[in-house]
């Protein structure tokens, strides 16, 4: 299967939606809130479409882009009712409906010979359900964004060393360096390494909460989403 798109990551550029975000703002959602929301959900939606409808990279990107464009046009965000479901669930169900319609339309065209579907290889047809993939990607994207917030915060507040230690230990795959090795590398006591790590994790947790607060409808939904992130 061809590799995933790099779009959606913090250093990647989110595709600009064709409809002005001001329209969504006019529907009751502030521009920056909408941007944060798309930053968090673009990649999970893309991955969900890829695996649920077995699309190749380009088709999945186009469908994801179409979904968000359509959502903005139809004041999708303004219609969300927090009493019925979490926004994450609402969005995932809407993606499914949208992509299923598009998929069916493409199928009709295919019978006319216009569209080619990429076969899905064995690896991508893993046992994990598309719903589970959506939630896992949502969680991953949430942490990616929170880590970027932490990086920016460290750079702005002269705490680059704290971030470097966090990066070298917590963001490294196994085997991780020992605290002693990190202390020697940075010329600081071992206790400072553990203190820096504790500080960075604490800040990371705060940034995760902040990101979630920006895309949830209230305290109750925020608590539920926090529970899903940490348990």
């Amino acid at each position: 299967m061809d590799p995933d798109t790099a779009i959606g990551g913090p250093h990647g550029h989110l595709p600009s939606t064709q409809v002005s975000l001001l329209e969504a703002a006019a529907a009751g959602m502030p521009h920056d809130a909408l941007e944060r929301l798309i930053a968090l959900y673009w990649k999970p939606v893309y991955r969900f479409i890829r695996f649920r409808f077995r699309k190749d990279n380009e088709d999945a990107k186009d469908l994801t882009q179409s979904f968000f464009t359509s959502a903005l046009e139809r004041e999708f965000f303004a219609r969300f009712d927090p009493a019925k479901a979490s926004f994450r669930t609402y969005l995932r169900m809407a993606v499914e409906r949208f992509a299923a319609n598009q998929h069916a339309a493409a199928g009709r065209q295919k019978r006319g010979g216009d569209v080619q579907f990429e076969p899905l290889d064995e690896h991508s047809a893993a046992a994990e359900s598309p719903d589970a993939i959506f939630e896992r990607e949502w969680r991953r994207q949430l942490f990616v964004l929170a880590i970027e917030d932490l990086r920016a915060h460290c750079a702005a507040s002269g705490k680059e060393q704290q971030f470097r230690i966090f990066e070298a230990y917590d963001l490294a795959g196994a085997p991780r360096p020992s605290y002693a090795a990190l202390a020697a590398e940075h010329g600081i006591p071992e206790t400072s390494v553990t203190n820096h790590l504790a500080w960075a994790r604490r800040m990371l947790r705060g940034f995760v909460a902040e990101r979630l607060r920006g895309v949830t409808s209230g305290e109750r939904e925020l608590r539920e989403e926090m529970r899903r992130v940490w348990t």
Partner: protein
Amino acid sequence: MDLSDSVLDHLRHMAALPDVSGTRYELEREIGRGGMGVVYAARDRDLDRRVALKVMEAELAGEARLIARLEHPSIVPIHETGRLPDGRVFYAMKLVVGVRLDHYLARSPSLAERLRVIRRAGEALAYAHTTGVIHRDLKPQNVMVGEFGEVYVMDWGVEAVAGTPGFRAPETPLDRRSDIYALGALLEFVLPADGPPALRAVAAKARRPDPADRYPDVGALLADIERFQEGLAVEAWAEPWRHRLVRFAARNAVLLWLLAAYAGVKLVLFFLRNL
């Protein structure tokens, strides 16, 4: 940035661990996890004793204050509440050594013992209701039986708790009558397969869909259980004659034996006189 699954899991685990370095506690291990927070076994360095430390989001700080108000032998006492550097709140409480009610039942305790646990749990509820606190999520997993037979009702709820299917009353919002529903479900849960119909009727009355049809308070439910244990008719059940006779016989067994013996002696004397 690309986060692998293993790095993501590591981050979630490490960032979730509470930073207790500024407190008197040392974490030992996680012992429980639920919607309301995570519970750790910990050591209180100052008093050199083990405690349970429950850590939850700041929004739930009200729970700690609410529970700290409750003082009852069947409610776990809170030693201290505090706030972690990341804003989460915690409370330190007695570390109960025991088993959950659902596990306790696997030891096949007697009916009297099962009812004792229900009565202790009910007494804790009745007390809490007098202070305006409701549990909201009473279920076997939230009742602990200690190694000396003590009974504790754990995890007192706050607004966020939605209850557990099978134990949650149908009405919204939950109130005192909803706790009565859950206590009825708990009674039904602890009854053995051949449990007495009178007790099943008590459980059924507590679980009626309309809160107005249930017992008016926990005390009334407990009184009905007590009546059963004393061999009296329970309010919840229109008892058939056959059951009433059997219950009367069981309750007055000594008197009936004496009467039978008296009748027997009189009969023997009657025959002896007529020989």
